[in-house]
């Protein structure tokens, strides 16, 4: 306290700006108390407390709590180290690489989950750059590439019809696109590298299990008309280097999480999409395709599968004949629809919207074999692995 400090010590503290012990509030003045003057060196008080002991205790306690949290993440939640998460910075990194790539992929979560990049590379010798974003309008990403004068490769545009033909808004990827040019700063890049390095050792660093993401999940639809955090989409994927997404294995094996994930889609029920909206989307897509082709690039559309329970509602909102078929005609583009791939029928979609990890390889195998027929830009390697089929990832169908 002030009385315990000698005059010379107090003076020294004043000059140095830091003093031991807390001054009463009225004595620790700020610039607001000194109008129109040169402001002196500010005074900072160090409360008389055993700070070193307290600090050691706090860091030890935090280490213990964090270790317990990590244990909980691994054993109870089922998170894994090496699942490196995605981020706007990671997408920006992929997007920059995509500018000069031979093949890039854009679209929503379906093409993101359902493309096995390793399989693609083994078959063609080309590893595509994965630039799709969950919950994002593939048309907006297609236009983003159309605006990129450097891109002259093959662009695979994946789609869930309801996402691609959404009347307005970009979706979750909006901020990714908007802040793209801010996410290549040195501090962003080092942050990305450090984050990935840490996530190779720590499982709890998963954005789906951030404190502010899971804490509000006690709200089980309490307020009608709002999207309650409990009903929101929880973690359904794991992410590996190169933005390789796969279905989180707990969604495949845990009935509760699988049931929750299925429920979160609300059956993909949407009101019927006005034909005028579809026409507008097709028109904009055609223009983007034209611009990419004008500088030597090309575009092929891919429609990954969805389970019958969703598909029926997707068809009600936008029939294939109104959306997909007319898009290919309108954009004068080639496309691969999961319905048309015999090897891609009746694959496993644990939460109805995305393929299981093993089935992603089967679907990739199926669509890449079709892709090489549609474009001269890709060829099947002579040593490409043999074709995969439904039995490589799905249980045998009951006889009869």
């Amino acid at each position, binding site marked *: 306290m002030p009385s315990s400090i000698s005059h010379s010590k107090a003076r020294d503290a004043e*000059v*140095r*700006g*830091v003093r*031991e*012990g*807390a*001054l*009463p*509030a009225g004595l620790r003045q*700020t*610039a*607001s108390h000194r*109008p129109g003057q*040169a*402001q*002196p*060196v*500010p005074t*900072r*008080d*160090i*409360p008389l*407390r055993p*700070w*070193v*002991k*307290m*600090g050691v*205790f*706090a*860091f030890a*306690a*935090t280490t213990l709590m*964090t270790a317990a*949290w990590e244990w909980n993440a691994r054993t109870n939640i089922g998170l894994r180290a090496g699942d490196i998460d995605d981020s706007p910075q990671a997408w920006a990194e992929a997007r920059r690489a995509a500018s000069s790539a031979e093949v890039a992929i854009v679209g929503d979560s379906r093409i993101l989950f359902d493309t096995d990049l390793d399989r693609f590379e083994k078959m063609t010798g080309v590893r595509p750059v994965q630039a799709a974003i969950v919950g994002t309008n593939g048309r907006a990403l297609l236009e983003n590439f159309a605006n990129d004068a450097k891109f002259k490769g093959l662009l695979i545009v994946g789609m869930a019809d309801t996402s691609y033909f959404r009347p307005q808004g970009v979706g979750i990827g909006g901020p990714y696109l908007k802040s793209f040019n801010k996410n290549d*700063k*040195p*501090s*962003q890049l*080092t*942050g990305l590298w*450090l*984050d990935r390095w840490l996530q190779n050792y720590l499982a*709890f*660093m998963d*954005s789906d299990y951030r*404190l*502010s993401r899971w*804490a*509000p999940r006690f*709200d089980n639809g*309490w*307020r*009608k*008309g*709002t*999207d*309650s*955090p409990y009903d929101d989409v929880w973690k359904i994927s794991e992410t590996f280097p190169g933005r390789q997404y796969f279905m989180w294995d707990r969604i495949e094996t845990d009935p509760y999480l699988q049931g929750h994930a299925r429920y979160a889609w609300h059956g993909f029920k949407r009101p019927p999409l006005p034909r005028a909206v579809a026409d507008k989307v097709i028109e904009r897509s055609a223009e983007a395709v034209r611009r990419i082709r004008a500088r030597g690039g090309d575009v092929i559309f891919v429609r990954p599968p969805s389970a019958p329970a969703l598909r029926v509602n997707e068809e009600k909102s936008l029939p294939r004949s109104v959306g997909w078929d007319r898009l290919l005609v309108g954009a004068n583009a080639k496309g691969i629809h999961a319905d048309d791939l015999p090897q891609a029928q009746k694959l496993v979609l644990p939460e109805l919207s995305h393929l299981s990890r093993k089935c992603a390889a089967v679907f990739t195998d199926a669509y890449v074999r079709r892709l090489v027929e549609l474009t001269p830009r890709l060829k099947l390697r002579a040593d490409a692995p043999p074709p995969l089929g439904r039995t490589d990832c799905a249980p045998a169908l009951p006889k009869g």
Partner: protein
Amino acid sequence: MIFNSLTFLVFFAAVMALHYAPFFSWHQKKINLLLASYLFYAAWNPPFVILLWISTVVDWWAAQWMVRAKREHTRKLWMLISVVVNLGMLGYFKYGGFLLDNFVDLAAAVGVVYHPPGWDIILPVGISFYTFATLSYTLDVYLRRSKPAGSFLNYALFVTFFPHLVAGPIMRPTELVPQFEQPRQARLNQIFFGLALLTLGLFQKVVLADGFLAPVVEAVYDAPGKMPGMLDSWVATLAFAGQIFCDFAGYSTSAIGVALCLGFAMPDNFRFPYGAVGFSDFWRRWHITLSSWLRDYLYIPLGGNRHGQARTYAALMGTMLLGGLWHGANWTFVVWGGLHGLYLSCERWLRSRFKGFTPGRAATLGLALLTFALINITWVFFRAKTFTDAGVVLKGIAGMQAKPDPLIAAGPMILAILIVSAIFGTHLAMRNTTLEAVIERTPSVAIAGIWSVLLFAVIVEQGQGSAFIYFAF
């Protein structure tokens, strides 16, 4: 670089190691700090370091020549050169697009159609902060409040010192330059207290502002076409009051903590502002270094309260309008500042009308609540991107939406209300004390326990490395 990033943790560890390495002289340590500060700034956008250099060199020489000048008008000329260069850079980068847009609108209003080329200029991070810091140097020398810095290194380090560089507190040269003159080394208790402040600041920013409050604000303010009702509008606006406080006070607290670890003292920038009773009290507690800067270099030169009532009110309004514009190149910020100017003017009039009125406890609480409520109205203009958006929320606040859309889910709403109530309650309870005094009265075990919980929450929240709101100013 931002405090709430992994990059900063590595950077800070390296800076501490260099600062406390025994084999460097004090002069070398200052050079290390200067280089580290440039690195800190360049990590965001390397080319903009040039602006820092321009600001540093121009103001250094302006002050030097001001002191050497024999005639008063020569001194004035150097002061004006400094003001024009600094405000010119600020005006070009921050207000160029805004001025151009307004010029186009004005021309259109008189029937002239003008299509200028697109204004695609990136705002250099923290330019508003370091411009004000360097301006105070030449203005203080011009006003003979202080002498020029004795060494260019000390002055350059004052401008660039990374804890305050990009988002304040806005320091004056007389506050920091003397601290560079003598070797400084923090004692262990000072370092640990600094780390505790850094933890508190990061908790405010990462957990409260970004984690829990921002999504509630966005649910209403970033929902085009939706019509929020009274509940949603109030909760979102209150959440924004909490968010902007935790964001900015969190930055200031972190900055003070970081500086303390290096052995330097930085001034308070917030003093429990939501516990304010009245608006002059609020501005003595909110962003203190900016409000005192505006008072010393704008309000007082405009006449202050020395030239009668009318001039005082005009100076008050002018200061607050420009203060609003400082926050952003948008008319919504000007209205925000104007509302505060209006509040301050009304308060001034009421104080002269009811001299000698001393509120009791209940009246104090009532006035604090009224102050807080009216401040929330101003935040609507601060947060909304357009007047239309602001109008939608204000209509909701007034309960005038015919068919309101429910926008905020119950869970986040409950958590936001709890957090904002805790902030308001804490500010009220601590309005006449300091954090340090409260810590000194609290058992060490409790402080250590709270510290570990805050740190754990920061780690578990992880954060997304999002920039502080005030970075854009």
